[in-house]
């Protein structure tokens, strides 16, 4: 049984170390490992993906095995990515495609927001979202007396929340850190453009909207921001100054929807949210981890405006050395390729980690190791490779 006092001390030391990498305000005693591991965990544990999705005890066991086998500072995904037990009771199971052979879960390009829905969304966002959008998305709720089914959803939602808390406790028993403050001034993707792109309007239809009705897209973004992002930001401004000592960072925006935007479109629809995040980070002494899918190089001149020593940027596809050189105001994370983890040898993987640590960490060791891709498929990683890099990072002290 883990010595919880010792593990709590380790966890808090790791949190402070993580913050020191970002701010440069204290010593860095090891290179933090931000574990970008998703459904590969369940493959490694010997389960089918669909087994884990619908059985919390299997999800718990898989995560316990992972934390035991691969000591690391942060395990990013601890089951929250897969709330299928909750959403499926509302009738949208067909929106997800679960592939057991490849350990993948995909979401169909959804467009429950119809062409005529811009006006009601802009006029009264909450009324539109509750009364019109949700019944379109969840067919079980598309009836007058839906309270019985909604109550079943609420019970499952609260059960899921409890389960996530339980898994967080399990991770704590291994000294694994809680990553981002859930009550921080900004959350993962709860702002207008991401919501329209990922879920409401969908990739295809939104791309057409950007050409044919850009002013409505902007107004819809602002309406959604006024409903979700701005109130959260205001709560964040009212919270105590300084970075929350229980979390590695205070905000963790996830960038997905930028991948189809030009710089001009990014400036109009996307940058306002990042600018708000940067402003509150500076004014309230907070730390931010930007987790970015795809490539972001065409937006680096925007990122040059980010306040110094407050941001970490992790990019899936950009060259990490080039990014650090272009953006000396931030620290970078990533660099461990799935190709090497999945196809290389332990020695090759450790050599890559050494190169990253030495070239990017510098004399004060300010670098965070992570996997460039969301490690999901069986071929994304070999057990012995991951064990080798975890051992190296654990043993290498500064």
């Amino acid at each position, binding site marked *: 049984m883990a010595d919880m006092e010792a593990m709590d001390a380790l966890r808090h030391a790791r949190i402070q170390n993580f913050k020191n990498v970002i701010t440069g305000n204290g010593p860095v005693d090891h290179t933090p490992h931000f574990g970008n591991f998703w459904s590969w965990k369940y493959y490694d544990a010997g389960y089918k993906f669909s087994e884990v999705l619908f059985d919390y005890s299997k999800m718990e066991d898989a995560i316990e095995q992972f934390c035991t086998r691969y000591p690391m500072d942060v395990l990013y995904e601890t089951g929250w990515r897969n*709330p299928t037990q*909750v*959403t499926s009771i*509302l009738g949208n199971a067909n929106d997800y495609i679960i592939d057991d052979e490849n350990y993948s879960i995909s979401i169909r390009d959804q467009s429950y927001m119809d062409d005529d829905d811009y006006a009601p969304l802009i006029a009264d966002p*909450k*009324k539109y*979202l*509750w*009364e019109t*959008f*949700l*019944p379109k*998305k*969840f067919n079980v*709720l598309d009836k*007058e*007396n*839906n*309270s*019985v089914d*909604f*109550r079943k959803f*609420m019970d499952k*939602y609260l059960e899921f929340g409890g389960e996530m808390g339980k898994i967080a406790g399990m991770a704590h028993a291994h000294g694994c850190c809680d990553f981002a403050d859930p009550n921080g001034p900004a959350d993962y*993707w*709860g702002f207008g453009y991401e*919501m329209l792109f*990922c*879920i*409401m309007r969908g990739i295809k239809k939104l791309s057409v909207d950007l050409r044919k009705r850009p002013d409505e897209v902007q107004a819809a973004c602002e309406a959604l921001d006024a*409903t*979700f992002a701005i*109130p959260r930001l205001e*709560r964040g401004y009212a919270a105590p100054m300084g970075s929350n000592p229980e979390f590695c960072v205070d905000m963790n925006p996830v960038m997905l929807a930028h991948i189809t935007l030009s710089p001009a479109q990014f400036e109009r629809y996307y940058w306002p949210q990042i600018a708000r995040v940067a402003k509150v980070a500076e004014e309230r002494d907070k730390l931010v981890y930007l987790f970015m899918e795809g490539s972001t190089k065409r937006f680096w001149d925007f990122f040059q405006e980010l306040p110094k020593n407050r941001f970490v940027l992790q990019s899936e596809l950009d060259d990490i050395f080039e990014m650090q050189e272009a953006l000396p105001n931030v620290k970078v994370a990533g660099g461990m390729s799935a190709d090497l983890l999945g196809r290389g040898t332990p020695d090759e993987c450790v050599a890559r980690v050494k190169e990253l640590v030495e070239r990017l960490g510098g004399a004060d060791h300010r670098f965070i190791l992570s996997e460039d891709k969301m490690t999901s498929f069986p071929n994304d990683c070999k057990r012995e490779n991951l064990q080798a890099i975890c051992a190296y990072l654990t043993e290498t002290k500064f």
Partner: protein
Amino acid sequence: MEGFNALAWPEGVDKVEEWLDFLPDDKAIRDLFMTDVLQWLIQW
């Protein structure tokens, strides 16, 4: 067993808030909780 439109805004959502006996009676806190539920339902 109750039967109403839980998605009617604001009256249905206000009735749902009455179920949340684990939260303080503060309406602002309950409203915030339901805004978070709304966001979660949109995004997942």
